[in-house]
């Protein structure tokens, strides 16, 4: 699901979001479900989304990714 389909849902939910849409001020960590060519399907608060993994091509199912503006920026090391 990309683009316009997601757009409508997001317009309606924008006021419910607690963090800024431009800068992801919370660590928006998402667990990778499956990996495709240059994209991963991640679980973001129970919602499945596709993020680009051009910058984190080593991402594998089970990894936690820091996601921002539709792309994964980095893998998270788990545990405090």
């Amino acid at each position, binding site marked *: 699901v*990309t683009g316009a389909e997601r757009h409508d849902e*997001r317009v309606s939910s924008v006021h419910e979001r607690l963090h*800024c*849409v*431009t800068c992801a*001020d919370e660590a928006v960590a998402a667990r990778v479900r499956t990996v495709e060519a240059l994209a991963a399907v991640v679980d973001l608060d129970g919602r499945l989304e596709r993020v680009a993994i*051009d910058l984190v091509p080593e991402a594998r199912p089970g990894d936690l990714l820091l996601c921002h503006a539709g792309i994964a920026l980095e893998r*998270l090391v788990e545990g405090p």
Partner: protein
Amino acid sequence: VRYVDEYRDPALARSLAAEIRSLVTAGEVVRVMEVCGGHTHAIYRHGLEELLPPEVELVHGPGCPVCVIPTGRVDDAIAIAETDGVTLATFGDMLRVPGSRGSLLDAKARGADVRMVYSPLDALALAAQEPDRHLCFFAIGFETTAPATAVTLLRARADGTPNFSVFCNHVLIEPPLRAILDSPGLTVDAFIGPGHVSTVIGTDAYRFIPEEYGRAVVVSAFEPVDLLQSIAMLLRQRAEGRCEVENQYTRVVRREGNERAVAAIAETMEVREDFEWRGLGVLPASALRVRDAFAAFDAERQFALPGARIEDPKACRCGDVLTGRIKPWECGVFGTACTPERPLGTCMVSSEGACAAFFSYGRLRRPREQVPVVG
């Protein structure tokens, strides 16, 4: 997956607060600037100032990407949006930023095709879905967001998308920090460094702060325990006579950053001679533009833009808020003429803006006579 519980543990937060109290000297105020708007938001949202002794004063920095965009660039975006056959897409918060003739939402109400997206890749997908329209993405943000725009430009070129462009307003974190550090009467003693910008550029990028300006930096994550730990780390540096860049956000930030992200930015964008910042004026080499190799996707070359430099409303003191000279509630229009519903200045627009964050979470904690409260 929220992945935050352990970073909101009240017992841990209390023990860190106790450590912070043990590290301050009575009556000796340490002013700590949190550079990133995300930190500002978290500090107000979680009431962290309540946990700190009066000797630790938090000063809000310039790191809200929406807040630093000047009025003239909003007007340029509106001019693009009002061009026949053009759809302008951008992040939600940018839709409400006031230009000199209203916001992008006002332009939409007048008939312009303005849409909200969460990713520049979504804007590129819209261009593919609607080949008869030109799709321009109004790109803003620090080094956190620039990689997404870079990846989008690379894909647009690979796909040969003919009807897509980027209006590039990406800014860099170092120049505003230098501007603040160079400003006369600087009273900031230490910095909480941005977390997600550092994911991209790495922690070494801040070494100039201790080395040239003698101020400590701790790169921090965004949860309450993270921020308290970062403040404790800064105070420990002072107590031990150290002054260096430390990394609290080790679960994601590396010293060298993400080289792939840096390379993608460098391939698609280059540093401008200068760029106007709200509140900070024109800063040399402080922003990015689209490289010649991607000229076909550069809105600044595709459209005739007004490019005007427009003064902020006189009553608006966003510039003073962004540079830490005043607190949000010290602005004369805070909470009266300027509210999140009808923002006058950018700091009231984004939830990361110091004024919006204070309006949402902090204003009721201050005596009424200090804070005008409406709505």
